[in-house]
Each structure stands twice: as structure tokens, then as C-alpha cells.
């Protein structure tokens, strides 16, 4: 297997470059076909998202893929070559594993990338550009991504303001179902937070805004109730979660007001989220029992802590990937070495039988015992001669140079080159299967 990967990502190229190299999904099939033809690839796949464009191919040199990329997008080499990264074999495998596991993402641990890679794989598969090698690689990559996700905490904690708000609300309330959220001041951020809360079970939404029409408009989005700004204090007792984001220059909710609210609520806890700058809620409100106030900086602090945690977990994920890359390389190498051994044996054995047939006439006076002895001698000779090459090859099964070594052996013994296990079909039958996850022996 000769794997090459060429690409640009948010780490190496600005968006102006990335967008020029992107493959729109409707043209993906045609692009794949062009790639197979022009770069003479055995197998290929293209991943094109807003953060990265990557081509993985089995067979061609990276130079051919580069040429294809320049020609296809009608772009000069000088414009993009500095931004392109180009990886081979083990490095390419590692990169695929890291991308799929969301370790190379802009936001480490974000879950979308796995879906995007799966989609790219599906399109390539439909286009018929996936063979045993890439399918083995990608299936392993999906398994690795799953492992990373379940064994490390890289995508566990919230890293956006609205998710952090949901997570904190979950630490206060048993269950968000049946809870009421009030939005004071219809801002985009407030709406986003409310949307996340609603998706997580919050059942009713109250919206209040200085311009009542805007409140009505937002309330409609959430199936909620609009409340005139002058009266919001009459309704705020009902809210378990209050998101405030008005443009007011002074506090909208003061400490005495919060004290009154908590008294009316018979000490039922209330969660204030203040995402306005300047702040809407007096920070002293947090001192009241059963009242929890988070302003935008507090939320940011939560997010920063979570990010730090993710980075720590990313180290553990890298360790998992190191192991997986090694295991996968070994598997792929033994996929080449083992069939070679089998074919080598088969080929020499075939020659022995042919030779015996050739001398059959001259042996017609031999007694059956003598024929048996000839058979024994030749067989023993074959085994003796093959013993060293086979031992050496077996030893190379777990060596990175194993593939080259197998190739040399094939040349020496004049065995037809194979393109993976399917290339050796007919000779032995033991290597013809396309199962990817099991080593052939």
C-alpha cells in the first residue's frame, strides 16, 4: 500500500486559499473520477469542509496529486504550494486518524468532523473509488474516533457560551423539563442560549424587550409568551432561568429585587445569566442563597477551564492514536508480507511438481518406494531453500520496511505484483478476503 495525502487546513492556509481549493459536494463525484484518471490513483477520497480540503489516495506519488489539484482548480502552484501539506504512509494514516477523531479541528473535540469524514467516504464509495486499502483505513479511523471519544474527555465539557449555560443549569436543576426561562432583551446571544436550553428540555419561554414588537417576534420563535418590559418584574418569579442581555447602561436586576424574587419563589433556586455588557444584573445578587449568577466573564472562565481540560485529554487521545497507527501499519504490512510468503511457497511447489512430471518417464522403472524417495528429496530441498527467505520475510511482517522487502522477494521469485490482498486471488485463496479489521493470519 502506497498512501499519499495532500491538503490544506485552517492551520496552514487562510480561508481565501481554502475556498479556492474546495470541492463542492455536487461536483465531488466528477472530481473523484478526474483524480483517479489523471493521478492514476488506485483508490482515492476527497474531504472538503470549510476548515480543510484533503485528498487521500492509494498508489500515485504526491506530485501527481498536486498536479491534479492545480489543474482542476486552475490555480498556479506558486499560489498554494506553501500552504499544502503532503504526508505519506504512516504519517498520512496518523493524520487521517487525528482529523477523524477531531484532534486537528479548530475546536478540539467538536463532533461534526466525524460526520463530514463519513459523508466524504460514502460519496467516494458510491463513486467507486474506494478499494480494500482505503476502506480498511477509513473504517479503522471511524473506530479510532469512537475510541477517542469514549475513552477520553475531549468532547465532554461545554466550550461555547450557550452550552456552558445549559451545563450549569443542569448542575443546579435536576431536570430542565418543566422549567421556565425568561429572556430579558432580545439579543442574538440570548436567543441562542435560550434555544439550547429549550432543546435540552426547558418547557416555557418568556420574552421581554423594550420594544414589545421584537419581544413578540422572538416569543413566536420559541412558542413562548411576550411580556411588556414595564411588567416583566411581575412575571420574573416564574422563571427558573433568567437570561439578560439588554443594552441598558444600569442594572436591570438589583439585589433587593433578587431578594424579593427568591422570597416569592419560596427559596426555589434561580439561575441568572447576564450576557450583557455593561452588565444587567448586580453582581451582589450572587451572594443571595439559592441564587446563582453568571456573567459573560464567568461563563468564559468556565469555557476556558473546559478547554484546558480538553487539551489535557487531547494528550491522552494522541497516545491512543500513536498506538492505533502502529497497529494499523503492522496490519497493513503483514497484509503484504503474508501473501508473499504463501505465494512464494505455492510458486516453488508448483515448479517442483512440474519438474517431477517432466521426469516421470525416466522414472518409469522406479519402484513406488523410489518414487516416494524422489518426492521426499525434492520436497525437503524446497523447504530447505525456502526456509531462510520465509523466516526473514516473517520477521519483516512487523517492520516498516516490510512492504519493500516483500516487493523485492516478489521480484526475486517472479511473483506477479499484487495490489493488496485481492491481487493475489486465485493463487491460494487464503488472502482473497476483503475483511479489513482482521490480519490475514
Amino acid at each position, binding site marked *: 500500500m502506497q498512501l499519499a495525502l495532500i491538503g490544506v487546513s485552517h492551520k496552514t492556509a487562510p480561508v481565501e486559499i481554502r475556498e479556492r481549493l474546495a470541492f463542492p459536494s455536487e461536483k465531488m463525484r466528477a472530481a473523484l473520477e478526474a483524480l483517479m484518471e489523471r493521478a492514476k490513483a488506485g483508490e482515492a477520497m476527497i474531504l472538503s469542509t470549510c476548515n480543510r480540503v484533503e485528498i487521500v489516495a492509494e498508489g500515485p506519488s504526491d506530485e501527481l496529486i498536486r498536479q491534479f489539484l492545480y489543474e482542476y482548480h486552475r490555480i498556479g502552484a506558486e499560489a498554494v504550494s506553501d500552504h499544502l501539506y503532503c504526508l505519506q504512509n504512516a504519517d498520512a494514516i496518523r493524520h487521517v486518524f487525528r482529523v477523524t477523531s477531531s484532534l486537528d479541528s479548530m475546536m478540539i473535540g467538536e463532533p461534526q468532523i466525524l460526520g463530514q469524514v463519513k459523508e466524504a467516504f460514502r460519496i467516494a464509495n458510491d463513486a467507486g473509488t474506494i478499494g480494500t486499502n482505503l476502506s480498511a483505513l477509513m473504517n479503522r479511523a471511524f473506530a479510532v474516533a469512537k475510541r477517542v471519544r469514549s475513552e477520553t*474527555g475531549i468532547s*465532554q*465539557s461545554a466550550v461555547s457560551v450557550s452550552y456552558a449555560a445549559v*451545563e*450549569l443549569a*443542569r*448542575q*443546579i*436543576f*435536576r431536570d430542565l423539563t418543566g422549567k421556565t426561562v425568561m429572556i430579558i432583551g432580545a439579543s442574538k446571544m440570548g436567543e441562542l442560549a435560550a434555544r439550547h436550553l429549550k432543546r435540552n428540555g426547558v418547557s416555557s419561554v418568556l420574552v421581554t424587550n423594550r420594544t414589545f414588537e421584537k419581544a413578540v417576534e422572538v416569543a413566536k420563535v420559541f412558542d413562548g409568551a411576550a411580556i411588556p418590559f414595564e411588567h416583566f418584574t411581575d412575571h420574573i418569579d416564574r422563571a427558573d432561568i433568567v437570561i439578560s442581555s439588554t443594552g441598558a447602561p444600569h442594572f436591570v436586576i438589583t439585589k433587593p429585587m433578587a431578594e424579593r424574587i427568591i422570597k416569592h419563589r*419560596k*427559596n*426555589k*433556586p434561580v439561575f441568572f445569566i447576564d450576557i450583557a455588557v455593561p452588565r444587567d444584573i448586580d453582581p451582589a445578587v*450572587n451572594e443571595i*442563597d*439559592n441564587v*446563582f449568577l*453568571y456573567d459573560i466573564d*464567568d461563563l468564559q*472562565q*468556565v469555557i476556558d*477551564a*473546559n478547554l484546558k*481540560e480538553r487539551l489535557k485529554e487531547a494528550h491522552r487521545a494522541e497516545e491512543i492514536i500513536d498506538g492505533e497507527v502502529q497497529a494499523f501499519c503492522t496490519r497493513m504490512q503483514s497484509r503484504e508480507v503474508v501473501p508473499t510468503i504463501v505465494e512464494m511457497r505455492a510458486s516453488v511447489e508448483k515448479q517442483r511438481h512440474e519438474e517431477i512430471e517432466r521426469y516421470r518417464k525416466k522414472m518409469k522403472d522406479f519402484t513406488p518406494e523410489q518414487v516416494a524417495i524422489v518426492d521426499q528429496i525434492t520436497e525437503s530441498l524446497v523447504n530447505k531453500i525456502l526456509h531462510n527467505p520465509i523466516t526473514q520475510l516473517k520477521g519483516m511482517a512487523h517492520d516498516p520496511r516490510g512492504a519493500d522487502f516483500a516487493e523485492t522477494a516478489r521480484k526475486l521469485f517472479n511473483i506477479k505484483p499484487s495490489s493488496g490482498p485481492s491481487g493475489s486471488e486465485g493463487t491460494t485463496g487464503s488472502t482473497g478476503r476483503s475483511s479489513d479489521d482482521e490480519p490475514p493470519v
Partner: protein
Amino acid sequence: MGGRVRGEEKFFTLHPALPLLPQKSVHFPYAIIFRMLTLLRLALGLYFLGLTHSVLTVLRRRETFFWPAAFAMIAGFICQATAIGYRAYELQSFPVTQLYESFSLFAALAVPVFFIVYLKYRIPSLGVFAFPMIFLMTFMANMGYDQSDAIPAVLMSHWLYIHAPLVILGYVALFIAVSAAVLYLVQEHELKSKRPRMLYQRFPSLEVCDDLAYRSLAIGFPLMTLGMISGVLWAHMANWGPQWELDTKVLLSFFTWLIYLLLIHYRLIAGWRGKKAAYLAIAGFVGVLATFVGSTYYSGFHTFTQ
């Protein structure tokens, strides 16, 4: 005054003959295996695994090894229950008259109660409090064990079967309540301080902690009350004289009971929840510990000595 009672009537001892046990059984290996001390030590070892879970959870700020710990706790419980059963057979009575016996009973009851709570609330982090307490109680039971101990004659009564289990079960419920209260305070502190750590995400929400604290109080308090009433009736019927109520343990448990009464009152009438209620629950449990564990240091019927 306890001394006076003991002076009047020598407690009778079972141990010189242990007539209920066939003497030769001592030679059978299974008899040795089933000896209370062996089982109790086995239980202690298993509870130690539970303790490890608690320590690791706090150290690594991560909920790990809950299930292995839980299985160890269940296995430990089976050993301990068998040990108590064996002791009951040995005494032909309910083994709660020695302090260590009541500790053992407390620990043995706390395990199933923990798992009942777990089934309802799914709070593995409660184990961080429950497992060490169970370990500690079993440890003390191990320390104090003396096969020759027998039931003080003054306590030979059917009331023992009512009074002691009610009180100890009440203590277990109140222990769950105080654990939930501490969980609440930790979680509340994390949320208020806005310095989030990984651990806090594994802890139950404030609402759950408060609810559990309240419910276990609502179960523990009546049990404790009934236990005390049965004690009063027992004292009355056994004609222990006019001064039984000056027994230190009786007085202490009355004060403890008052704290819990206050807590119930504030919760129901003043709508207290969360932090204040948690503090009062802790105060109440300090009273429980003083009554339960501290009774070694003062005299009376509850000294658990012969």
C-alpha cells in the same frame, strides 16, 4: 445510677459453656470460616476497596471504579450480614447490646440503604461519603469484638428488638441526609465560586442533593422519634426508676432530636432549602455521632459495657 442497676443483678454470661453451640463444631473448618471475626475482617477488607474508590474519586477528581467498588461493598455486606447472623445465633439474641455490635449493624444497614438510594437517584458520588463511613464503622466493630461479651441482663427484653433497630435505621437515614447535605454544600460552593472543576460535573445537581437530604430526613426523623418513644416505654415498663431520663445518652439524643425538629420546622414552615438546611443537617448529625459513638465515655444503660 447505671452502676446501681448492674450491682443489683449480675449480668449472666453465656460464654463459659456456650451451651447452644455444639462444642465439637470448633474443630470443623467451616465453623472457623464462619466465625464472626473472620467474616467481619473479610467484610472490612472488601469495604476497603469501597474506600479506595472514594479516595481515588477525590484525588483524581473523577468518578472511577464505581462498579468494582459497588460489587466489593455488596460482597462485604453479605459477609457482614452473615457475621451478624452468626453472632445472633451465638447469643440467641439480637446483637446490638455492645457498642461494636451496633456499629456493625449500622454499617450492614447502610450498604443496602445506599443501594436503594442509588437505584432511585443514581448518585455514585454519594459513595464518596457512604463507603468510608461504612468502612470506619466496620473497622471499629472489628476492634471492639470480644466473643465472651454477653447481653447485660438489664437489656434482656423484647424491647431490644424494637428500640435498637429503629434508632440505628434512623441513624442510617440521617447519615444519608448529611451526606447529601455535604454534597450540596460542595456543589453549591463550586457553583458560587465560579471556579469549575471536573469533579463538580460528576456530582448530582443541587436540586437532587436537596431533595435527597429532605427525603432521608423525612424518613430518618420519624424512625428516630419512634426509637426514642420505644426507649421511653421500655424504661417505663422495666421500672428503671425515676432517673432514667438523666442518662447522658437519653439527654443527648433528646437534644439531637430537637435539632432535627427545628430543621423539619424550618423546611416546612419557613421554606428553608439548600445551604441553611444543609448546615442544620450537619449540626444534627454531629448530635447523632455524639450520642451514638460518644456513649463510650459516659455511663448509663447505653454504655454497652457489662
